[in-house]
């Protein structure tokens, strides 16, 4: 056979049919979160300081301290960055932003705490802490994912929450690519759209 053996048509659909499916799965996840026994989710706890972590886990002093330091550098790398304290505070609230340690021209939300996942055998996975930030009444990750209310320290999250987040950087300018195609397209001004590149 010289053609693709099988295509999963459901993954190729773009219309309403697909949306209904994803709405269903969202509802399902919601149910699992409430019951707190979803196999795909993970129990986690948020510590706002290293001390809080140590008090609750006296045998894990070094791990708590390391996790906190780790969360600080991860926050610096992955948090959204702003040009001024004010623009940052507009998003995260008054007094909730700090100057970047790596670049004094940047401001980012202050670390609200760090979240660690509960291991199946008991204890916590301090090696992969996820920095969290206070956003209105919720804890959010660097990518904006909400992890529940700020009053709840024990949360149930997706395993994605502990995956490494992408690096962010303050953008100086935009629009430095795309000028050539604009010039080429305006040549064919009778056309109702820009040219494609294939042939």
């Amino acid at each position: 056979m010289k053609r693709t053996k099988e295509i999963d048509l459901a993954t190729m659909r773009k219309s309403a049919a697909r949306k209904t499916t994803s709405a269903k799965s969202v509802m399902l996840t919601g149910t699992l979160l409430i019951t707190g026994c979803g196999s795909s989710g993970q129990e986690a706890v948020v510590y706002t300081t290293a001390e809080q972590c140590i008090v609750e886990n006296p045998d894990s002093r070094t791990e708590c301290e390391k996790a906190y330091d780790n969360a600080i550098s991860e926050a610096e790398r992955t948090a959204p960055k702003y040009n001024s304290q004010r623009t940052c505070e507009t998003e995260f609230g008054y007094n909730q932003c700090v100057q970047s340690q790596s670049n004094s021209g940047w401001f980012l939300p202050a670390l609200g705490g760090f979240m660690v996942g509960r291991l199946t055998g008991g204890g916590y996975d301090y090696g992969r802490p996820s920095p969290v930030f206070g956003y209105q009444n919720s804890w959010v990750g660097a990518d904006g994912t909400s992890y529940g209310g700020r009053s709840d320290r024990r949360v149930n999250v997706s395993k994605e929450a502990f995956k490494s987040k992408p690096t962010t950087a303050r953008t100086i300018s935009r629009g430095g690519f795309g000028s050539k195609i604009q010039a080429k397209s305006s040549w064919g001004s009778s056309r109702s759209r820009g040219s494609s590149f294939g042939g």
Partner: protein
Amino acid sequence: MLRIQCDERPHWRDQAHEYGFKFHTMHGEPYWDETAYYQFTLQQIERDIEDPTAEIHQMCLAIVDQVVRDEALLRKFQIPELYWDVIANSWFDFEPSLYSRIDFAYHGKGPAKLYENNADTPTSLYETGFWQWLWLEDKAQSGQIARCADQFNSLQEKLIDRFSVMAKQHPNETLHFSACKDTDEDRGTVQYLEDCAVQAGIRCKFVYIEDIGHGEGDCFTDTDDQVIRWMFKLYPWEFMFREEYGPLLLKADVSFIEPYWKAILSNKALLALLWQKFPNHPNLLATYFEEDMNQAELTNYVKKPIFSREGANISIIEDGNEIYFADGPYGEEGYIYQAYHPLPKYGDNYTLVGSWLVDGQPAGISMREDKHLITQDLSRYLPHIIL
């Protein structure tokens, strides 16, 4: 190779909506055309298309290997000097490529003749890998085409496999996909690649070419200020090299699909070098640089810009007379001259075979028809079968 008239599937427009195929009609003209299909024998496909595709690709790679080491040739290829090193390094480091499309004039017998190599930003991918596949499924199901009919089209399977391999080299990294604004066709092509990458387990994000940002610390950013580390761009290298952010490419640490060396593979100057290195190869047409034309003895030839897309700025010369000219905005970088070998004509239509490669492996074909001798972006797309 036959052109066979057939009935359209009554539901295909609804189906197109369901699957998000938006550009089946462009500028009020049909682009996807299933009022006919092409039929090949297995021997035609394997002997005349598939094998030459693999061989020509290897021949083209030999030229890339020659050009990256030769400053005079890099100049002939109109590659700005600033990018010579980054192109050579991408070649010597074996930076992986995803896909290409080689265009052939094929008459159903005799050797298919290479027109050009679209190795950097080929489109008509979704129509090939998915849409014509679905057409054959439907036609076989309804009994209008024999169940034993096949298609030369393992594109989707191969793309997903290729992305799975690439994913291993970029663990936990986001792949940014990018295309220009205001073109459903390019956006649809990139969406299709995104769908394939997702099925290979890759985390994907989309950003328009025009929205890419320059981030502090010499990096590229998307509209969420996320740093771009791995990117598929449906935008030609020859444009990127000449735009404002071009020099930033050298500082920003980004893995690109397609890699830099595709700037040479997709360049039409390659056609002239192919003829120099492999003269009289049955799948090649005699092709020359302008300065070699006095010794070339070409009476009927096609003049093609080194950088050109969708048939723009191409002229056909017969016995010194220009018999056809396609207008366009290209040509300032110079031309190559290729022996005139017209496309086969089926009824009123001239037919071009596009032969796809994924990671250097032949992966299927696309059929394009045009009323004119030169295939352009409004040429219709027709499905094919092997029987």
